[in-house]
């Protein structure tokens, strides 16, 4: 990989980490309503995906994808702060605060929004892909699904339908080892989710989701494969999330140490970059500038007004009004 490409991805990963860390802090201070799931630890997987998805593609983010959402928003719309504002439930959010962390969307950024009924968009993604196919557009529709989400029956319906119709779907399976407290190998017939996907007969691959170079390369290959009209692709990222179950940590100590210290995607990329001769000061500056930007986003979100109360009854139907209180 070119040094500059990697530097860009490094910067992206810092955007995600800074975003999530600042968000965690604000959440703990009671400034963010609802629930919080973060993508901390999964920055390489997310940055790799975001870097290949165009504004004309579509992705369905899951509950840990604030980072991808923010990267796409910033890159394609120039206003990543609107993702932050959405999480604060503010009028300036991408959905005017009506969606929140679990339902932030901006189709112009390719972001079709999470569906907090985990995995339901494994079905929805088919329709976006089908529309591209019918219209002859070379767009990719990507469903980002956790290992746990794979338990849903829609996994089967979706992969099967994508296969028989040769749809341009990228299944980005983020296998971070657990669904809340359920270890992937206990919740599934195989700890390698790819084993459950292979039977559908389309392209499948696995990658170290914390190795940004490998992840970026494999996502690129998968998306290219799909764009060429070769049908769906299943790509499993092996990664790990910092967040345990809500508050506590329940995973073995050695495992925690391995992923947080020895296999941190940002530290790993940092080492590669240094080995490529990038100055540590420059790397630190990258981090700092992303942290600064995120603090601006936080400030923006906090200062933004709450949505107009009329929003409460707006957009239930296109063709009818709903009466307010």
């Amino acid at each position, binding site marked *: 990989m070119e040094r500059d490409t990697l530097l860009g991805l490094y910067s992206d990963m810092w955007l995600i980490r800074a975003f999530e860390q600042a968000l965690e802090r604000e959440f703990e201070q009671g400034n963010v309503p609802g629930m919080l799931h973060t993508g901390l630890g999964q920055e390489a997987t997310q940055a790799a995906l975001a870097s290949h998805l165009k504004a004309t593609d579509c992705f369905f983010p899951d509950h840990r994808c604030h980072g991808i959402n923010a990267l796409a928003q910033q890159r394609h719309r120039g206003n990543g702060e609107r993702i932050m504002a959405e999480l604060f439930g503010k009028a300036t959010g991408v959905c005017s605060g009506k969606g929140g962390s679990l339902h932030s969307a901006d189709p112009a950024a390719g972001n079709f929004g999470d569906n907090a009924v985990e995995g*339901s*968009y494994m*079905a*929805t993604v088919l329709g976006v892909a089908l529309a591209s196919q*019918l219209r002859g557009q070379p767009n990719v529709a990507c469903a980002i699904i956790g290992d746990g989400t794979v338990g849903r029956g829609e996994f089967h*319906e979706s992969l099967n339908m994508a296969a028989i119709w040769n749809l341009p779907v990228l299944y980005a399976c983020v296998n971070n080892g657990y669904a809340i407290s359920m270890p992937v190998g206990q919740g599934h017939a195989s700890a390698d989710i790819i084993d459950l996907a292979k039977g559908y007969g389309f392209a499948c691959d696995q990658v170290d989701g914390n190795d940004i170079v490998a992840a970026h390369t494999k996502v690129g290959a998968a998306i290219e494969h799909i764009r060429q009209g070769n049908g769906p692709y299943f790509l499993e990222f092996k990664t790990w999330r910092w967040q345990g179950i809500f508050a506590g940590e329940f995973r073995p100590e050695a495992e925690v140490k391995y992923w947080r210290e020895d296999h941190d995607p940002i530290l790993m990329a940092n080492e590669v970059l240094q080995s490529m001769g990038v100055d540590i000061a420059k790397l630190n500056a990258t981090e700092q500038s992303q942290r600064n930007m995120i603090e601006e986003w936080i400030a923006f979100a906090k200062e933004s007004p709450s949505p107009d109360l009329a929003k409460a009854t707006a*957009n239930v139907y296109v*063709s*009818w009004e709903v009466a307010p209180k």
Partner: protein
Amino acid sequence: MSDSTTLADPAKPAKKPRKTSFTKALNDALDIGMERFPEMFLIGEDIGEMGGDFAVTKNLWAKYGAARVRDTPLSEAAIIGTCVGAAMVGMRPVAEIMFADFLGECYDQIVNNAAKVHYMFDGQFTAPLVIRTACGGGFGGGPHHSQSVEGWFLNVPGIVIVAPSNPADAKGLLLASIESDDPVLFLEHKALYRTRGDVAEGYYTTPLGKAAIAREGTDITVVATMRMVPMALAAADELEAEGISVEVIDLRTIRPYDAETILESVAKTGRAVVANEAPKIGGLGAELSARIHEECFYDLKAPVGRVDGLDTPIPFSVPLEHEILPDQTNIVSAIRVTIEAGR
């Protein structure tokens, strides 16, 4: 064709009506829709070469091809998911779920996805999809092929529920549903498929959200849906001989429903019966009865009568099924009770 039917396209005026079956009227609507809307496609099980379990999509596969008339595997959740996704990017999918009883398989997609994408993403998406499905009992279909499912979706904001009672409305309401930018659950009562009636040729729409006065009357208002409409009309005929003048309202759209037409009628008649095939408790009749009572409280001469199915699943045996489904006799006696009661 009911009188509130609109001829929305003056360029292509509807030709004069001729006797057509409910099934053929629906088939016409789909055919016209497919011609008119390049973004429209059909999707469902066996809707292609076979033309659908009830022949509603007959010949369309041959005419429009397999890309726009899409046969699927038995994957109801994926069918509706596909519709939602495609609709989010501006397509106009029309799905067929073979029997309404199977909507349980895609309930999440309808309730949490189709009905909510417009709202939760602040209007950035719409979900202009139609889910056609065959509902209702009376043919020995048993517990999983006979249900009336409007009650499953009545408490779900964001969804439109359409329920025609005659061929002309079937066509006009289906075209209006296809045109609507809201997600529509389109209920086709199986007992109506073979009924015939005057249907105008060509393009026209019947407005969503508007009830029709199927028969004018002065003594009592009967609000009915789908198969209960012809039953209510027959009941009205029967009671006319006794000097009871029954106004029959065909609700046509169940959600959001046309309270205005109902309330005006009841303000005039002072008495009402609501007739719906689904089980009574928590059904459409409850909503209508509550609304009429609440808003016509001072005009009402007697409590509103509710005619519904019994509070049971639907048994296979024909005499048992007959026992639990409402019919003309039940409407007649509910009208009598309501007329005789009162203060």
